[in-house]
């Protein structure tokens, strides 16, 4: 008699929330890698990488880590370098000691920050190459395509 198989796949139709959270009573020591938005409100020691997503450091958070994300919102305490490809938003209750690297920064009055700021603008988007006009290989390029009608005026045809 075979044992029943157990299916651990998500039920059809279920939807992932798209964000993760570490509560204020959670402590993590080590490396965190996230492939979705992440909110940290506890204690973290190590590194946090959240490429292409938003990382929020909540008001109760105490982080001693290097942070990398697309966008970083800071409300708590951080000791470590912060690297955001798009934007860093430092709220007035935040405390940040470390170096910042980003394209844009917003800092509210009252926020405590000690460190350096490097603003690196993203490379300007190169214009998309224009598609070459379609021309039949049997026609010389200097002549108009045969599909273009040539206007004929009265009396011009003999």
């Amino acid at each position, binding site marked *: 008699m075979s044992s029943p198989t157990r299916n651990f796949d998500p039920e059809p139709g279920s939807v992932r929330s798209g964000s993760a959270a570490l509560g204020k009573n959670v402590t993590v020591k080590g490396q965190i890698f996230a492939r979705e938005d992440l909110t940290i409100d506890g204690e973290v020691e190590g590194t946090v990488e959240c490429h292409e997503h938003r990382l929020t450091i909540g008001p109760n958070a105490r982080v001693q880590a290097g942070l990398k994300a697309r966008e970083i919102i800071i409300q708590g305490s951080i000791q470590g370098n912060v690297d955001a490809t798009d934007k860093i938003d430092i709220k007035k209750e935040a405390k940040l000691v470390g170096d910042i690297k980003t394209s844009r920064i*917003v*800092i509210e*009055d009252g926020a405590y*920050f*000690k*460190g*350096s*700021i490097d603003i690196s603008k993203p490379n300007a988007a190169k214009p998309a190459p224009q598609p070459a006009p379609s021309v039949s290989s049997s026609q010389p390029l200097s002549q108009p395509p045969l599909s273009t009608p040539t206007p004929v005026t009265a009396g011009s045809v003999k």
Partner: protein
Amino acid sequence: MRFGATTGAPTKPSPKDAPPALTRHSSGFDQFCGFLRSTEGLSILDMSGASQANITFITSLGHRISSDDIVGTMQQCFGADFLDNQQAASNAQRFIEQTLTFPDESFDGALVWDALQFLVSPVLEDTVEQLLRVMRPGGMILLFFNADEKATRTPVYNYRIQDQKTLLQTPRGGYQRSQHFNNRMLERLFERAASVKFFLTRDHLREMIVRR
């Protein structure tokens, strides 16, 4: 040469006693901006704490900015009375350990604003030594000092850049006793610097540029 404290009782700031916000034209900052515009990629230290205005202004010119709130450190280490409480060796040591904690020759420019007027010997000389240490040769330092020798209390301000010639002084934490310096005292304080330049002003603030 020892710099002594001015007399006068320390005051506890109250809402009614809050100094006003001021907008002022600054010839010293105008000259500092000439230095900023002369090249890109400079490393600038702003000792008035992090602010959107200053960060945007400096980084828009293509420079790197570092922030350090020296007056905030004074408040942490010296409490309500800067001049009295920095006489305690433990407070002074704690202040020096937390201020200008950067490697040697880290900066091309520094905006010290008026912070040094709230320091007395020996903390003042120790801080100036650290300031010159973190500056690169040829680096430029902008400083302000209260020029009113009759003033017993000086408002404590944040300095926010409005444009190349204009600063916004926003009050923080009421008043503190401060030293009064004349030009000769300041020249001796920065005698290790390459050059010192003073700017005439119409108000009670003496502006100076020091070249490391």
